[in-house]
């Protein structure tokens, strides 16, 4: 109960109001989101679950400012990213959002440290950025301190994903968006990555929205949200409820 009160008092990290997204495929309009409404508090770890094609990835891309919605409003850290132009969305993404992808999306030509440093440079818009976390600290936290000089191809899948998490959080983003972060990993590495995300959430109060098909993965979140047919159906509080609903 105390936790609920505390959560309610926190500021909103993400607010989504009546979000609609329609893709134009040839001459046909294909709706991907049909009025999504969701609020995520600062420091929350929310898992978004749902079947393929339900609009999870579209929602994540919209939250990250990679896409512009057809209609509706998105606020990230108090700024309406759905109302700004492309340049401003890019700036907000640079300053407030970190991404973790299923396929890691590391730059293959740079070593681990340089991948992280690049994110820091981009955050500083080309200049070395003094704020944010220390590279060594993040690498240590994610147990990558002995892999700093390794290129992504020289790392295991789990290590690559931890590296992509390190890159995503190095600038202390207001929001960490994770798109199926364990989708390409075996169970041991999946567990490790999820533990890391949990640790970041608990230790640094990192707000995380994670998309996943994996119920085990979703169970590490503090809240689970179900999507279907472009809508948020309900909020799943625990695994038992989720299983009862036959979601997974």
């Amino acid at each position, binding site marked *: 109960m105390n936790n609920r009160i505390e959560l309610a008092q926190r500021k909103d990290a993400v607010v989504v109001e009546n979000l609609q997204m329609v893709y134009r495929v040839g001459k046909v309009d294909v709706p991907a989101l049909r009025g999504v409404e969701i609020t995520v508090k600062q420091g929350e770890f929310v898992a978004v679950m749902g079947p393929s094609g339900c609009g999870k990835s579209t929602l994540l891309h919209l939250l990250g400012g*990679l*896409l512009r919605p057809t209609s509706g409003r998105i606020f990230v850290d108090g700024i309406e990213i759905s109302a700004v132009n492309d340049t401003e969305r*890019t700036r907000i993404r640079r300053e407030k959002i970190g991404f973790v*992808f299923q396929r890691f999306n590391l730059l*293959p030509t740079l070593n681990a440290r340089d991948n992280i440093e*690049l994110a820091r440079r*981009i955050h500083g818009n080309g200049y070395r950025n003094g704020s944010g976390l220390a590279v060594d600290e993040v690498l240590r936290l994610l147990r990558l301190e002995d892999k700093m000089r390794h290129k992504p191809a020289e790392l295991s899948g789990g290590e690559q994903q931890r590296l992509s998490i390190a890159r995503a959080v190095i600038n202390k983003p207001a929001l960490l968006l994770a798109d199926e972060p364990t989708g390409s990993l075996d169970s041991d590495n999946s567990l490790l990555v999820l533990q890391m995300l949990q640790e970041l959430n608990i230790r640094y109060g990192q707000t995380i929205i994670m998309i996943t098909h994996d119920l085990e993965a979703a169970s590490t979140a503090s809240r689970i949200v179900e999507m279907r047919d472009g809508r948020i159906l309900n909020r799943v509080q625990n695994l038992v409820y989720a299983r009862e609903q036959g979601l997974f």
Partner: protein
Amino acid sequence: MMKLILSNFLQRPTRTFVSIMAVALGVVLVLVSVGLCYGQLTDTAERTRRIGGDFLFQPSDASLLFALNSGTLPVRIKEVLEKVEGVEAATPILAKFLADRFHLVFGIDHESFEEVNSSLRFVDGALFTQPFEAVVDTVYSTSNQVRVGDEIEILGHRFKVRGVFVQGTASRVMVPLATLQEINGTPEKATMFFIKGRQGVPEEQVYKRLRDRFKHYKITRTADLQEIMASSTPVFRQFVAAVVFLSVVISFLVILLAMYSTITERTREIGILKSLGASRSYIVQLILKESVLICAAGVTVGFILNYLALQLILANFPTMPVSITLFWKVAAAVLGIGGGVMGALYPALKAAGQDPVKALGYE
């Protein structure tokens, strides 16, 4: 950003190498072509100026590239020229181009030449006094290992070397006018006259009098020779412009192709940069900096290759004049880099405008 650029170079060494060499080729093309053209012009103008006359007198349709002219002027015009008020002396010269050696031989009249010229300095021997004697300059002497007393062959005839003079005046080889007229089959004819004005008489006045007296001849101030040569030599400007254009096009196309293919290959990488919040200008800068670095390396390699190419040319044609001014060195560098940057602009803008979601999904 620099690490990313350098790591991309190393990741694709063949592409990087080929791009650098192509830009280098453009630079070499400009420097060698312009160097040889301007070298010929500058050398000719400077040598001509140092003959010592104030005016050059030629038939009206004659070229300032003496190799293109034949001997059509009667030598007796000398007397008429010297009667013009303000003219101190005039000396006839018959010029003959030696295609196999790529230089001119001047046939000069000993006495009148010395009246007009004051810069000819001999390091060994003296000016000829007999037919079939020759004097050569220091470059010719060194490159052909010729000394006073040796014999050289000119136009199928043997000439005895009578003196070696400091290079920079008239032609590499000079022989008696009458001898060259005889060999050339043009007795009593000259290609041109050099006219020396009388001291104390304004040059402009003498020039006007000569122009008034010889309306159907070409009279040129020797001080203006280089400028006039550059502007009036047939196809010179067009040739230089064509070479410069070609060089820019090479740099432009090679960098366009290299950068276009690299951004296609690196679509996903651009998507990643965008997901990290890289702005359009950051991505444009990334591509442009990469192309500038390739072009700068190409320019550097081009300068080295140019030096080697010129050494090779001079080893085979020691008397070939080469002149590459600072202006053309800077121009070659700017053209190489500028062409490359122009070539990279479209791929850079295309990369910056990519949809990040599509780019991230690119296989």
